[in-house]
């Protein structure tokens, strides 16, 4: 099993989708030329979220968005660790759109490739809005026809649910409404910096 994940502090705490690390005998975090073994610290009973711990935060932690609302129609960027290796050299600012919220679940339109589970959903400020977990279920077909170009409906856990899970497990994270990127910086490159590969060996 291979998924994605992201650091949430500078102490080696990383969040990924629970199903990525279900039943793993060995978890390895990979990114920026460094691989580390990690330990599953906690899993959520209510959301597809897991907290794992590694010796080092190898790049940087995400900053949670504290904007008041997850507005529909907000452009977002989220992709797997593998896909971002290519995307980072592009200048794209979004590969999807935030469509709706249903409790702690976000609905997005974007292309979800293999290994994207656990990837952070970033808005154009470089702030984290949620985490990809799966392709959307049939009940969300009311959102309309699937757009062209391989894009489909994808679900994500909201930042609020991830934040509540982290607080319950004693993890302190950063939240802001300030842009984390200057106008000259590339959101895809930032996404590649933030997104780690999570490898599960059973």
């Amino acid at each position, binding site marked *: 099993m291979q998924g994605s994940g992201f650091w949430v502090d500078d102490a080696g705490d990383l969040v990924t989708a629970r199903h990525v690390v279900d039943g793993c005998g060995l978890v390895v975090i990979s990114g920026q030329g*460094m691989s580390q073994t990690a330990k599953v610290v906690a899993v959520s009973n209510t959301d597809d979220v897991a907290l794992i711990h590694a010796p*080092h935060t190898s*790049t940087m932690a995400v900053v949670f968005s504290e904007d008041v609302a997850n507005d529909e129609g907000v452009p977002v960027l989220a992709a797997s660790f593998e896909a971002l290796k290519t995307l*980072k050299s592009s200048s794209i600012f979004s590969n999807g759109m935030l469509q709706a919220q249903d409790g702690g679940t976000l609905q997005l339109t974007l292309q979800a490739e293999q290994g994207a589970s656990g990837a952070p959903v970033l808005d154009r400020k470089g702030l984290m809005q949620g985490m990809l977990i799966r392709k959307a279920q049939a009940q969300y077909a009311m959102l309309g026809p699937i757009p062209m170009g391989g894009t489909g409906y994808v679900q994500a856990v909201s930042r609020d649910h991830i934040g509540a899970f982290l607080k319950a497990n004693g993890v302190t994270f950063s939240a802001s409404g300030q*842009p984390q990127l200057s106008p*000259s910086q590339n959101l895809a*490159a*930032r996404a590649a910096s933030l997104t780690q590969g999570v490898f599960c060996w059973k």
Partner: protein
Amino acid sequence: MSSLRTRRNVIAFLILPVVAGSAQAQVIAPHNAPASWNAYSVMLHNMVQVWLADNTDAALRLGSYFEGMRANDPDGKMSLPLEVWIDPKGMVSDIRYPLFAHDQANADMLTVLRGREMPEPPPADMAQPVSLKLTLSSKGAG
């Protein structure tokens, strides 16, 4: 416990972005810097940690040197100011710090840090150098 593991546990950093240039340069504290500068500085801090923990001869030798410095410090801790310049493509183009007494340690610092590539380029308007404070203490991370 390996020397690599030990070294990871004793190196910590504090970060201060500063304006580049002369000794009269104005220091910009993190709380006055744009969020994008602070974000990039934090990433630099974490990458320096990763680079210092490399499993290379130079990094391992440097780690041992730091251990020796710390052990000889009466307070059991030591700090080293480090200024880092990043080029527009994200490569560490230069570093500056109070030179060590041993040439090999200075050569290792350059080998380990200069020429390394950050995951992404810095903000174009970011003041440089970025000032890091390497704090070597006996407090282990476990």
